[in-house]
């Protein structure tokens, strides 16, 4: 039996239906054509849908039921830190004194908002061990670019204009080389060694007087702590370069180690990962940057500072790289992160990392019986398995991921990092219970058994979702990017 497609808003629309209730026109009608030539008045109305309020609600409620979030179930998506999003965060973000304030109001009329931002900056400085923090960048990738622009400005201020290269490990997130490129650098790759860590010999080979920075995630994307971090810092610093910390994996080490103490010069954080700002189906995020003292003059402007018990936006910062975003960053997300930090405190954040790491190691130990563990050692908050044994049976990692959907789980990150064949990158987070972890592990082990005895079931998965595998090739070859009647 053919299942009917879920209609689009536009297919539900019917001429003459309305859902809006606007304030009345309580002033005399003006002659709008008096100052505006007819050619500027729209003749074709935009074809927005015409629906009643209930129809809109049914539409979006229906769509929400065709979606899967952390509140729906386990979401062990590696490197994304899909932890629980506390409800109090959502409530405080909707207080009118936070949600309905304008960025251009007199600063004296928004001191409460600025106090929160200042306290958050202070907390992030402590957590990272950096000298100063700006909340302006909108998301992790923008934080990366902001950090690299500061490094660039630092070198230029020293008359050091030959530093055109940014080094990234082969296991790095795609945003690292992309951010380097957008900031005007060439991205150079440094190899990993057999332990899954940056190869120091290769680092020494690629580093030089043209090195602007080395970008690192620590723990790295394999979930392994870069144990030779101080040696790496020394190599890069001796060559005159700076060390950049991608905060994607900070959830592993809060209260155990700080980027500032490892020799990093610039840090960005993903508040939507570690600090529970929800992922929102792809955003908005927030990507504050922290820096050492010598890079502080280059922070984006304005910088929020405290002067005589008053909070002010200091725009008089001549060495600043300028603005990276209008206004003061994603305030609403920063507020959620602040609420989370106030809930946990220093003690709680350390427990967060403790349990994130315990959960990951527990899963890793149970799963390595059936899946190849390319780097057998304690992991941090996440670990990477290889599906290469299953591949020999004709079952790809993609198939395993799709089969997990039938068990009601969001699959792990797959085919990343690039240096592991048929990679499955699993990050359970600290907010999941042992029962949830066991349920997922059992499903993975069952799928491993299926791969041996009944590979078709895995290869043809998913079987229970509202749609099956999508034809992505046609989607890209003949793109349909909007609805047309």
């Amino acid at each position, binding site marked *: 039996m053919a299942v009917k497609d879920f209609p689009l808003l536009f297919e539900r629309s019917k001429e003459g239906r*309305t859902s809006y209730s*606007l304030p009345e*026109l309580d*002033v005399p009608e*003006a002659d*709008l054509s008096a100052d*505006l030539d007819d050619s500027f*008045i729209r*003749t074709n109305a*935009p074809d927005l849908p015409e629906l009643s309020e209930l129809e809109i609600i049914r539409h*979006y*409620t229906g769509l929400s039921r065709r*979606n*899967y979030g952390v509140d*729906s179930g386990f979401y062990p998506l590696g490197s994304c830190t*899909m932890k629980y999003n506390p409800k109090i965060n959502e409530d*405080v*973000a909707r*207080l009118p*004194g*936070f*949600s309905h*304030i304008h960025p251009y109001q007199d600063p004296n009329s928004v001191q*409460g*908002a600025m106090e*929160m931002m200042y306290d958050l900056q202070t907390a992030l400085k402590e957590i990272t061990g950096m000298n100063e923090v700006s909340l302006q960048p*909108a998301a*992790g*990738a923008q934080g990366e670019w902001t950090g690299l*622009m500061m490094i660039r400005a630092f070198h230029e201020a020293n008359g050091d204009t030959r530093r055109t290269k940014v080094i990234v490990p082969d296991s790095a997130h795609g945003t690292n080389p*992309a*951010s380097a490129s957008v900031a*005007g650098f060439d991205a150079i790759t440094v190899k990993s060694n057999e332990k899954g860590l940056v190869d120091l010999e290769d680092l020494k080979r690629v580093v030089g007087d043209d090195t602007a920075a080395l970008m690192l995630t620590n723990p790295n994307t394999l979930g392994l702590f870069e144990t030779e971090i101080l040696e790496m810092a020394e190599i890069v610093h001796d060559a005159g370069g700076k060390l950049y910390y991608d905060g994607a994996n900070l959830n592993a080490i809060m*209260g155990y180690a700080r980027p500032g103490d490892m020799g990093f010069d610039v840090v960005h954080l993903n508040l939507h990962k570690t600090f529970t700002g*929800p*992922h929102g*189906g792809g955003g*908005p995020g927030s990507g504050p940057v922290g820096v050492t003292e010598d890079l502080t003059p280059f922070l984006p402007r304005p910088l929020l500072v405290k002067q005589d018990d008053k909070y002010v936006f200091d725009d008089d910062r001549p060495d600043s*790289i300028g*603005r*990276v975003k209008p*206004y003061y960053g994603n305030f609403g997300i920063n507020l959620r992160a602040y*609420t989370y930090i*106030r*809930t946990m405190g220093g003690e709680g954040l350390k427990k*967060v990392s*403790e*349990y994130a790491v315990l*959960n990951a*190691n*527990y899963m890793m*130990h149970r799963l390595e019986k059936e899946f190849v563990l390319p780097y057998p050692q*304690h992991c941090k908050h996440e670990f990477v398995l290889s599906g290469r044994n299953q591949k020999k049976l004709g079952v790809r990692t993609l198939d395993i991921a*799709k089969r997990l959907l039938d068990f009601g789980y*969001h699959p792990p990150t797959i085919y990343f990092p690039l240096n592991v064949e048929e990679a499955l990158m699993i990050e359970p987070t600290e907010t999941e219970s042992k029962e949830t972890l066991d349920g997922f592990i059992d499903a993975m082990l069952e799928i491993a058994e299926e791969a041996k005895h009944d590979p078709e079931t895995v290869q043809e998965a998913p079987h229970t979702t509202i*749609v099956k595998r999508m*034809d992505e090739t046609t989607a*890209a070859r003949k793109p349909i*990017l909007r*609805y047309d009647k």
Partner: protein
Amino acid sequence: MEFRYLPMTDTDKKVMLATIGAENTDELFSDIPVNVRFNGELQLKKPANEAQLKKELTDLANKNANLTAYSSFLGAGVYDHFIPSVVDHVISRSEFYTAYTPYQPEISQGELQAIFEFQTMISELTGMPVANSSMYDGGTALAEAVNLSAAQTKRKKILVSKAVHPESRAVITSYAKGPGLEIVEIEQVNGRTDLVQLANELDENTAGVVMQYPNFFGQIEPLNEVRELIDQQKKTMFIVSSNPLALGYLTPPGEFGADIVVGDTQVFGIPAQFGGPHCGYFATTSKLMRKVPGRLVGQTTDEDGRRGFVLTLQAREQHIRRDKATSNICSNQALNALASSVAMSSLGKHGIKEMAMLNMHKARYMKDKLEQENIDVVTTGAFFNEFVIKLSGSVADINEALLAKGFIGGYDLAQAYPELEGQMLIAVTELRTKEEIDTFVKELGDIHGR
């Protein structure tokens, strides 16, 4: 101390450590070298219980003068518009807000379809065939458009009108440093772009021309004339930043031959929230479809022929192309795009025009009122819902006096344009009542007259 987000019991911990073969959790951190280990406790405020924290944050929120308690005439890129109740109910569905990017289409059809619908509505409003899933905000969307025009034309010179939002211009300047672009600002005269200077600066090295419509001063720029100028330089791209609400009434930039149209959908269902998160949009021509920054959702079918949606044309993006990607953007503003979609659906085809016209009527009423009160109105040309007045004395001082009367006054133009000392940009949305306008004008007259 126990934490409500952490479910592990002591028993769980013991069993798990036994499985791992570790004595305690510290062992799991033994790979962190001793000399980089953090000893002691992070010096943060003590953990707050839920009741205490709610009170603490409510008190902090109450220290701020908010737009629901004060009557605001402040705009300048961020507006106090009506938000229908349906918006927050939809975006509070946690299947939406606790999801990640829809990389697994089988369990993400809801988000994917919502984005597809967003793309369609932005395409309709702007008159452009292609729109992406969202950008951080209008300012960074504009900066990405500028960098794209340079990459596409292989030219380095960008002409930016000074009637473009000052903070967007600042962001353009920051983004331009990477690819080493030359930004030339074109003066504004009486709140409009100086087209004579624009014509003089436009040459065969010009990658893009950036205009705002309606512009920062609220005025409606003659995009037709700008297009004619650009046509003389074949490859140069026409980039327009546009308030999408105004496009409910105004001819869309697409009909004037824009190559890239960007802006911010904060006007649709997104509260001001101190400047973010808002939601950028990015729309362009079919020709540039494969160069668009950020995520795109496309329609396709599954193995059984059912319609469905997927992230598509991903070869543009950082997770595939790495350093060769169009942009480094990863996270976008999906949840806010959803809020705007709901608000746009709620307004519908007719409501959006009605709302745009309400803004225009009320702004014109207020402008007349101010003139009657002998306040110098600077704006003479066509405008949307913002216009400029000139006051004797500091705008900051006047705004301080207005605040005491329950009003948030307009934007002090001297902040971004030193030559416009004493000039205030006033925004009038559909939310301002006749009574609020009348009282504001009277209070302003009294303060100003003193």
